[in-house]
C-alpha cells in the first residue's frame, strides 16, 4: 500500500507539510525568536488553566518584514513569525481534538444505528438531518456565543456540529457491510454482535473513515479560523491564526503582512491535510486506479 502512495507526488508533499507542522509545533520554543510568558488563571467553571501572554512593544508596532522580524510585527509590536510558530500548537490541538471526539461519537452512534436499525436508526437519522440542515457556521457561532469566548468552547461547538457527518458515514458503511458474505458467515457461526461490530465491520470501515478524517482535519481548521475571524473563538492576545487575521484586517491597507502570513499558514496546513487525504483516497479506492 505504501509504495502506491509513494507514487503520488502530491500526497507526498501533503505528508511533508504535515510532518513540518508537527515539527514546528514540537520545536516552537527553539524556532521562535520571541516567546510568550504564562500565567495561571482560574476559569468561571472553577478550574485553573495556564494562559499565554505576549509582551507588548508599542514602540515597534506594524514594522514590515525584515531580518529582525521575518513576517513583520503587529499593531502591538509583537513578532508575527513567533506568534505563527506558537500558533501551530493551538491549530494542531484544535484539529486533533475536534476530529478525535466527533469521530468517536459519530462512529459509535452511526455504527449502532446502522447495525441494529429500526427505531434507533430512524431517530438518529432524523437528528442528523436536523443538524445537517442548520448552516454549520451559524450553529457553531450560536453555540460558541452561548459558551463564551475561548478556544475550548469553539472546540465544543465544532464537535456538536461535526459528529453527524461521521454518524452518517459510519451508518452507510455498516449498512453496506452488514449484508456482505463474511459478516453473514460470522453471524451464522454464532458470533456475538459486539464481536461482529468490532472485529469485522469496524476494521473494514476504517479506510473511508480515514480518508474523511484527513480531509476534515483541514476543514476543522478552516471553520475554527472562521469563528475566530467573526469574533468568537480564541481570547484576545493569544497566538491563534484566525484571530490574527481578524485583528490584522483593519491594517490591511498599510500592513499587508499582518493578514497575509497567518492566512498563508492556514492555507499551507489545510493544503497539507487535503493533499494527504486525496492521496489516501486514491490509494484506498481501487476504482480510481487505472
Amino acid at each position, binding site marked *: 500500500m505504501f509504495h502506491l502512495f509513494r507514487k503520488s507526488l502530491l500526497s507526498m508533499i501533503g505528508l511533508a507539510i504535515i510532518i513540518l507542522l508537527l515539527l514546528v509545533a514540537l520545536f516552537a520554543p527553539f524556532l521562535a525568536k520571541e516567546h510568550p*510568558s*504564562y*500565567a*495561571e*488563571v*482560574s476559569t*468561571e467553571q472553577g478550574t485553573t488553566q495556564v*494562559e499565554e*501572554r505576549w*509582551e*507588548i512593544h*508599542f514602540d515597534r*508596532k506594524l514594522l514590515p518584514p525584515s531580518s529582525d522580524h521575518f513576517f513583520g510585527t503587529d*499593531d*502591538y509590536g509583537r513578532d508575527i513569525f513567533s506568534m505563527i510558530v506558537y500558533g501551530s500548537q493551538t491549530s494542531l490541538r484544535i484539529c486533533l481534538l475536534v476530529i478525535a471526539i466527533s469521530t468517536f461519537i459519530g462512529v459509535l452512534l452511526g455504527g449502532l444505528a446502522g447495525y441494529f436499525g429500526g427505531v434507533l436508526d430512524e431517530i438518529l437519522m432524523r437528528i442528523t438531518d436536523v443538524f445537517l440542515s442548520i448552516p454549520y457556521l451559524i450553529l457553531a457561532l450560536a453555540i460558541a*456565543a452561548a459558551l*463564551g*469566548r475561548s478556544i475550548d468552547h469553539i472546540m465544543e461547538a465544532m464537535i456538536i456540529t461535526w459528529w453527524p457527518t461521521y454518524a452518517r458515514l459510519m451508518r452507510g458503511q455498516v449498512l453496506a457491510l452488514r449484508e456482505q458474505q463474511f459478516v453473514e458467515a460470522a453471524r451464522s457461526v454464532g458470533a456475538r454482535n459486539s464481536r461482529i461490530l468490532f472485529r469485522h465491520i469496524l476494521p473494514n470501515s476504517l479506510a473511508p473513515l480515514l480518508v474523511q478524517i484527513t480531509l476534515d482535519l483541514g476543514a476543522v481548521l478552516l471553520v475554527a479560523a472562521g469563528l475566530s475571524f467573526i*469574533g468568537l473563538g480564541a*481570547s*484576545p*492576545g493569544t497566538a491563534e491564526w484566525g484571530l490574527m487575521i481578524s485583528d490584522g*484586517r*483593519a*491594517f*490591511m*491597507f*498599510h500592513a499587508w503582512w499582518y493578514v497575509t502570513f497567518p492566512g498563508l499558514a492556514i492555507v499551507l496546513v489545510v493544503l497539507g491535510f487535503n493533499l494527504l487525504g486525496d492521496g489516501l483516497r486514491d490509494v484506498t479506492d481501487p476504482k480510481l486506479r487505472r
Partner: protein
Amino acid sequence: MESFKKKDMKAGVLAISICAMFICIAFSGCTQQQQPGNPEIKNPTIYTRYDIGEPRTLDPAESYDSASSDMINNIYETLVTYKGNDSKTIYPSLATDWVAPTGNSSTWTFHLRHGVQFSNGDAFTAEDVKYSFDRVLIMNSPDSGVSWILSQCMDTNSTKVIDDYTVEINLTKPYGGFLVLLAFTVASVVDKKVVEANGGVVANTDNEWMKEHAVGTGPYTLDHWTHNSEIVLKKNDLYWGGWTGKHVDTVVVKTADEASTRILALQTGDADVAYIPLENLVDVENSTGVSVLKDPSYNVVLGLFNLRSDNKFMANPDVRKALCYAFNYQSAIDNAYNGYLYRLPGCIPKGMPYYDTQNNGVAVFNYNIVKAGELLNASGYTQTYQFKSNYYRFNNTAIRIWYNTGNAERQKMALSFQEELTKLGINSIVSTESWPQYLNRMYNTKEWDFMFLGWMPDYNDPDDYIAPFVGSKAINQDTFNTGYANATVDAMLFKGKYNVDPQIRSDAYTTAFNIYINDPSLIFIGQNVYVRGFRTWLQNYSYNPVIEYYYYNVYKAYP
C-alpha cells in the same frame, strides 16, 4: 485520442471567452483618471456619507440614537436649534422669537414662523406644534423610552394654542434648560394630518408607519431607505429657507460596517465624509483631496471598578486607588487612541461648565507603578503566591478585565493594563464578549472587576455626567452598577442640580469631587476627539456636538 484535443480546445476557447467577458465587465467600471492638482469633484450635487450602523427609526417621537437623529434633524425641524459648530447658543428655527418666563411663572410663549409648508404642501400651524408635543407624551415610545426628555417638565396640558402662529407652554416645574430640550429631535414638529391619516397616536405604542416614512418642514425629504444599505434624501422644494445659494440636492448615507470599505470610498471620492477608525487614519491622511476633521467632543472613556465584585478586595478604596496609579494614561492616549484623546480629570468633560471643580482640571492620578505597589503593600496585599518566576498578590486571584467585542481601542487598553498589573504582581484575565452579554455581566452579575465604557451627552449640562457616574442607587443613579454609594456625595449632587446660583453649584461639585476621588469607582481615562475623514471639496463641513450633521449648508466646490 485526437478528437479529445479538439474538444479540449473548444472547452478552452469557451473558458477564455468567458474570462474575457468578465474582464470587459471589470474594466467597464473603471474609467477614473488622476488629474493634476485638485481631483475632479465626483457627483457635485450629491453628498455621500459612509458610516457604520443605521437609524433605528425616522420617527422623532421614538428616536434616541445619533444615527436616527442625523436623518430627523434634516427632514424635520424643531422650534429652536443650534447652528454651525456652535453648541452654546440657541437660534430660532420654526419659532421666530419667544418670551421666557419671569418671576415664579413657568410659562413660555413662542411665536411661530409664517408661510412654512410641510414637504407635502400642508401648511404649518400652532396646531401641529401642540399635536407633536402631546404625541410624544401620549405615545411614550415603548421602543426607546425617549419621552422622558419632555415629560420631566411637560404634560399634555402644557401646550396651548393661542392662535395659528402662537403657542404657550406651561411647564409642570421650572426648568432652566428648557430651550435645550426643545432643540432635541424629540421636539420636532410633525404634520398632524399625515400622522392622523397613518395610524394616529396610540397610547404607549410606537407608530410603525412613522418609523419608515417622514413628512417634515426641513430642507430634505426622504427619497428611499434600503435597510442596512443606504438612505437617500432629496431636497424639499417647498423648504422655507429656499434653495438660492449653494446646496447639495441629494444626500446619500451608506451603511458600511467594514472600515476598509469606508477608507477606499473616501480615497476614491465616492464618499464625501466617512467614519474612519483611529487606527486607520494613517490610510487616509496622506491621500490627495482628503482631510481629517478633529474636534473635541463631549464623549468620555471610563474604566469601571466593581465594588460589588465577589473579589472582596475590590471594595477596598486603596486597592482601587492603586489600580488608578497602575493605569498607563499616556500609553492609552498615544497607542490606543493614536493621540486623539484628552486626559480627563473627573466626570465633567472639558468645555462643560464646572470642569474646574475637579482639582482645577488637573488629573489626580498619574501612572506610577511604585506608588501603586506601596499602597497595596501598606494594605497588606503583598506578593506571596509564586507561579513560575513571578510572585502574585491576592493569592493569585485574577482581576477580571472585560471589554466589548470589536472595540479595538478598548482591547489595546485592556491588554496594556494587564501588562502593567503583571508588573505590579497582580494576576489578571482579559476577556471580551458581545454587547448584550457585556451588559448582562455589568448589570446582572458580580463576575467582573474592571470594564470599559463610554458616555455621550443627552443634554449640555454637567448634571448629565456627574449624577449618573457617582450618584448612588439610593437616588436612582449608579448608572454603571459599580456599587459606589456615599450619602454626602448624593446630597451634593442634589444641591448642584436644583440650585441656580453658580457659586453654590460650584461649591457642591467641588465637595463631591474631593470626597469621591479618595474612594474612586471609575478610572477617568479620557475625553474623545471627534474624528471624521472628508473630501476637501466639501465646503462648510463642521462638527456640532449636539447636531452632528446638517446638510443644508454644505456644498461641493473648491474654494
